[in-house]
């Protein structure tokens, strides 16, 4: 396949890619063709209205996010400061969650992601919600995934009894990042590994996330995090990029990693998880670098891209890929 023979959408005309890197990424593209064929997922979950020239979803929201702590998070990590929770629908009690889920169901929503802020030990306290989650799945027939923090046995087994469809968690591969960015000096990479182990033992569909550039825009523990994730045979891996705007004020001017650096992380993930879907998640900064990031991601052989930049959908087709549009969260990729 000629990588540079693709049709260029007008929005990509001025984009310059690193030719040597593109040659390096070919290995990832061949892995995806060999193991997954030509389908590529383009996700557009309902928490954001997303419309670019060559990609949009016409239906109403089908998949939305719910926070069991509203906007509150006790950790207030440097890279997020709880802002990721702001767009989520608050449901602070099991009763509220049931009401919100019924309301969403009546509006045509098929799936929900339940998350929330962490306590000072990095745990999202989902314990009181197990029963309602089970009802949402069984009585409303909705897809339920949970984005958790660190988990203990009680949480892992409770989620299993609730029958949640997938469990998502951010995996960090560097102790200093855990201490400084996440404000968890009493935790380490071993605790994240233990969480993966507990969730795997409980039989969950694991969809770990690795945040590229988490350590103040530098790449540090990403490769190790991916290697750890690979040991637990996840259902899929989601890669996202740190978003400076979401961080605390004094970190907002720190740039995220260059797309060329991020591309190497994507390729590493593709090779480490050659039999499992690797997708680009919704969280990544807007702007010209996102276009390059998405292009490199395509060349590195990812299985899906959420909110693709303008021109990416068209370019994917010209690479011989078969785009599949999904209104769901990218964590559902393993169902495809």
């Amino acid at each position: 396949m000629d990588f540079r023979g693709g049709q260029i959408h007008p929005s990509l005309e001025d984009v310059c890619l690193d030719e040597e890197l593109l040659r390096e990424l070919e290995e990832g593209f061949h892995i995806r063709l060999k193991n997954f064929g030509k389908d590529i997922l383009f996700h557009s979950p309902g928490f954001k209205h997303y419309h670019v020239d060559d990609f949009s979803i016409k239906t109403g929201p089908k998949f939305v996010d719910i926070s069991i702590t509203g906007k509150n998070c006790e950790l207030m990590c440097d890279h997020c400061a709880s802002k990721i929770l702001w767009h989520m629908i608050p449901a602070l009690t099991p009763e509220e969650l049931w009401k919100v889920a019924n309301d969403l169901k009546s509006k045509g929503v098929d799936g929900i992601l339940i998350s929330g802020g962490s306590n000072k030990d990095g745990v999202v306290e989902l314990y009181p919600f197990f029963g309602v989650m089970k009802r949402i799945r069984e009585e409303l027939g909705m897809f339920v995934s949970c984005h958790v923090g660190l988990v203990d046995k009680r949480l892992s087994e409770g989620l299993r009894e609730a029958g949640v469809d997938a469990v998502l968690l951010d995996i960090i591969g560097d102790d200093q990042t855990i201490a400084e960015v996440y404000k968890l000096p009493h935790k380490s990479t071993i605790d994240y590994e233990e969480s993966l182990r507990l969730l795997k033992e409980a039989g969950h569909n694991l969809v770990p996330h690795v945040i590229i550039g988490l350590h103040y825009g530098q790449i540090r523990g990403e490769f190790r995090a991916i290697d750890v994730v690979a040991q637990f045979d996840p259902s899929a891996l989601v890669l996202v990029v740190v978003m400076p705007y979401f961080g605390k004020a004094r970190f907002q001017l720190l740039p995220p990693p260059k797309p060329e650096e991020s591309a190497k992380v994507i390729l590493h993930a593709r090779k480490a998880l050659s039999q499992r879907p690797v997708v680009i998640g919704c969280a990544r900064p807007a702007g010209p670098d996102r276009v390059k990031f998405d292009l490199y991601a395509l060349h590195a052989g990812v299985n899906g891209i959420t909110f693709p930049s303008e021109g990416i959908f068209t370019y994917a087709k010209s690479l011989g890929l078969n785009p599949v549009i999904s209104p769901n969260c990218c964590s559902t990729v393993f169902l495809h």
Partner: protein
Amino acid sequence: MGLAQGLEGTNEWEYNGCIIPLDLYYDIETQTWLKVNDDGTVTMGLTDVGQVRAGRLLHARIKDIGKVIKKGKPVASLESGKWAGPINALVEGEVVDRNEKVLEQPDIINYDPYGEGWIVRMKPYDLQRDIKDLLHGKEVIEEMRKYIEEWDIICMRCT
């Protein structure tokens, strides 16, 4: 806020905190405005209602000067944390100027959508033909009111 309020004395209408200048032309669905300039060019931007729906804008892209854009095709694109969408050309024509300040700091649109936050200036090919599809003056009010109520919008300039 009454319908008549804002029509007497000033040339703007206000509803739920949203300011709608009545000397501009509007496309309600895309919440874009158009101003006819003395030199025959037109200036376009996002309405107060549009900037509230989008939230604090983080990224903007505007077509280069000299580009010819068909009516209804994107002349710019904007993105916030919860919204990304095109600004479609309300007239067919050539881009003659673009707001470099908006490219550097897109949230100017949130603070001053009709002033400093203008997006693009175009030289229309057939203004009389294209402007017929836009709402103007008092006819804007009812349609804008319906839109504000449908989306339950309260306008705020702080982001």
